């Protein structure tokens, strides 16, 4: 049976991964000189508690190829591996995975750049998990993932662009636009490209923009709502999405790596649209 390997940025809950036999490789989170294995040595709550207290943003680093080799080798040789990761534009993680896969000659390892992050990568992983459950072979699972990949999209409603600017994810010039008024910046990511959407001034406007964004992309095939220290906003967003689209909507949290850039007080929708748009 095909097995799945992910990195810690996909933010899928541990019990969900365990139930599906998914292997998770952690990134490193550095607060000054201290380093933690994401999700293993430091959970998301602890991360945001710590983030509140620091003046200098934490940094993250990709897992080493060695960590991936260890993870791949822990899986029986007879089982093909599909390894799904954070977008190459955001992290070197997928590079490490590719190097590891190359080194393990003779193993069937297919490394896939999700073009997304957090639950965007998470939802893509669930496409693979469902395909495996259906009994498809590795080729068919990979094909299903590659078919869905361009349709994976996230829209995040942030409280501030401060963290994204400090983290180098948004230029100062871009971040300066609209800085006089109190606004909630909106960011989207699809196919590895981060774009800044028109900002909202209120949560309500942000939710509506998320709904409109999903509609523009043909409605949701899969849908998740996530948050970074904004559970109320996530619940409100979920309620609106349920009313608008129905169907199952998963809830999740934004982990340390993306949380560093999004900052606390962010809510987001991750979805696979029915059309790429």
């Amino acid at each position, binding site marked *: 049976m095909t097995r799945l390997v992910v990195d810690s940025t996909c933010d899928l809950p541990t019990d969900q991964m365990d139930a599906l036999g998914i292997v998770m490789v952690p990134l490193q989170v550095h607060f000054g000189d201290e380093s933690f294995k994401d999700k293993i040595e430091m959970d998301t709550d602890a991360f945001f508690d710590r983030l509140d207290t620091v003046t200098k943003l934490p940094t993250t680093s990709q897992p080493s190829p060695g960590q991936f080799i260890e993870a791949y080798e822990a899986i029986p040789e007879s089982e093909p591996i599909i390894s799904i990761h954070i977008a190459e534009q955001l992290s070197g993680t997928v590079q490490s995975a590719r190097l590891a896969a190359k080194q393990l000659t003779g193993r069937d390892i297919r490394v896939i750049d999700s073009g997304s992050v957090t639950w965007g990568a998470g939802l893509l992983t669930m496409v693979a998990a469902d395909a495996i459950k259906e009994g498809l072979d590795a080729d068919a699972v990979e094909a299903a993932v590659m078919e869905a990949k361009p349709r994976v999209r996230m829209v995040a409603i942030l409280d501030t662009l401060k963290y994204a600017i400090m983290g180098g994810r948004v230029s100062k010039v871009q971040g300066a636009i*609209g*800085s006089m*008024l109190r606004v909630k910046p909106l960011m989207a990511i699809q196919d590895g490209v981060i*774009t800044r959407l*028109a900002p909202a*001034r*209120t949560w309500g406007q942000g939710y509506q923009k998320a709904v409109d964004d999903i509609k523009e992309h043909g409605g949701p095939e899969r849908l998740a709502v996530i948050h970074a220290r904004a559970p109320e906003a996530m619940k409100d967003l979920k309620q609106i999405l349920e009313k608008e689209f129905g169907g199952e909507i998963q809830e999740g949290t934004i982990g340390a790596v993306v949380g560093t850039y999004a900052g606390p007080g962010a809510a987001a929708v991750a979805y696979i649209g029915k059309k790429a748009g």
Partner: protein
Amino acid sequence: MPARGSKPSADRASEKAKAGTPEAAPAITRCDGVLFKRSLHGSLAWLAANRDKVNELNVFPVPDGDTGTNMLLTLEAAVDEMGEEDNSDLSAVAGKVAHGALMGARGNSGVILSQVLRGFAVGVGDRSSVDCLGLAQAFAEATTVAYKGVTKPTEGTILTVARRVSEAAAARAETTDDIGDLIQHVVTAAQRAVDETPGQLAVLREAGVVDAGGYGLMVILEGFLKTVRGQDVQAQAAARSAAQAARPAAAVAATAPKVGAHALATPEEGWGFCTEFLIEKPSQPFEVVREKLTPMGNSAVIVGDDSLVRVHIHTLDPGGLIAHATAYGPLQKLKVEDMTQQHHEILSREPVAADAGEPASEAPVAAASNGTNGHAAVSTGNVGVVAVAVGDGFRRIFEDLGAGVVEGGQTMNPSTEDLLQAVEAANSDFVIILPNNKNVIMTAQQVGDLCAKEVKVVPSRTVPQGISALLNLDPDGGLDANATAMTSALDGIHTIEITRAVRSTSVDGLKIKDGDVIALVNGKIQKAGSEHAEVIDGAMDALGTDGLELVTIYAGADVSEAEAAAIAEHVQERFPKLSVDQQRGEQDHYPYILSLE
């Protein structure tokens, strides 16, 4: 020849001049480019002299009446376009006038005036001069074009006046060859039409004013007539300006509206005595007092309520009026001015008065150049945005959001040309204009036809709406998609504007006293009171804050940081569920503008 009871103008000089006109001067039977030019100069001078009166004919008692200024600046642009040199070819001159007006059009009334002038040029066609029938045809075309220029033509406005003018011209042209006689009838028709506007529009009736745009058009035609009749319009205009300057400021604000309309419409009683007084706690209800006193003179402006009545009447018999009025209670602040005397004094100082009159036509030029500093729109990706805004704070906010800013708003509407320049300066071939004022929307809509760029107007009626629209600009989106998205963002914003009433009136049953703090909620007067905080509370309650998250308070130029902070704190306490964002708009006239979303 003109009937005795329908003289156009309010001054004795014109009376005398007119008395002998048909015999003294040969009738003018054709209007060529030279006569048209001279006449329009007369119109301009007369409109300049009457600008304040037109400005004061504002339905709302807010301090931003600018119809007169807008029409004046529009007409001035038209007149300037004719240049120094005389040209006898009417079609060439009318064409220039149409172009100048189109470029200089400001405000809704200015835009409609530009359409009137354009229609006139169309009606003249390629004729180098016209007779009465030709002139009537030009008036008819002017009306047609003006009606077409308005999406939803409303009767009781400048359009109605234009239509009545063209009907009168058509009728009179059947029986006269005398251009002066024709215009005389046209002016009479215009005066009647203006007087009847309150009967056609309830808002005018309630506010106790005639339509400002219609009144402005009437003034323009009067200036035209005076020229055709060989009168010295410049001197008359100077006298008129001086007379206005002589009036106490408070009286101007409180009483001006109908002074204009009726002084001009009913000159046969001469100037008489301008009589003003207050009756505190009248023995009879306000309506009764108004009903009884109104017929006792001309230009009656009787406002107030059961506790205080302010009376302004022009009468030949002030003694009789005063005796009658005292029956309702003791008179206060009684003032009687002999307007005939005043007028003669002004006329006898003619050289001085003529000088005094110059600024009336010069001032707008300076003002116009202030208004034209349109800054280049910063292109945000594919689409550039030009926003109209007044106040340094609002300018900074719009610029911060990537828009080019054209100075203007409540009291100085930008011209078509101002907007055109800013659009052309934009670093994009696709430009969206945010008028941010209901009186700028039509002007903005002219720009697209005048320039090679693709222009869309997102009809924002308030500055907060414009900011909301701009926040919805998608940097990667196209012109149409952005215009649609930005337009739909307009509905999500509520605007409360806090200002001060400049006269007593009643709007939608709400009694407003001169000097009251008033709140406009989404453009409608909803609340009046004495304190900012109290009126803001009332306005927000009237609007209802359920489902709203954020109130942004933009403090005006005259509000101190401390005052603004106190208001923000008050609003936060009173409406704890809302987030409060305190900003500086630094706008004039409006101490606070609130945006709720």
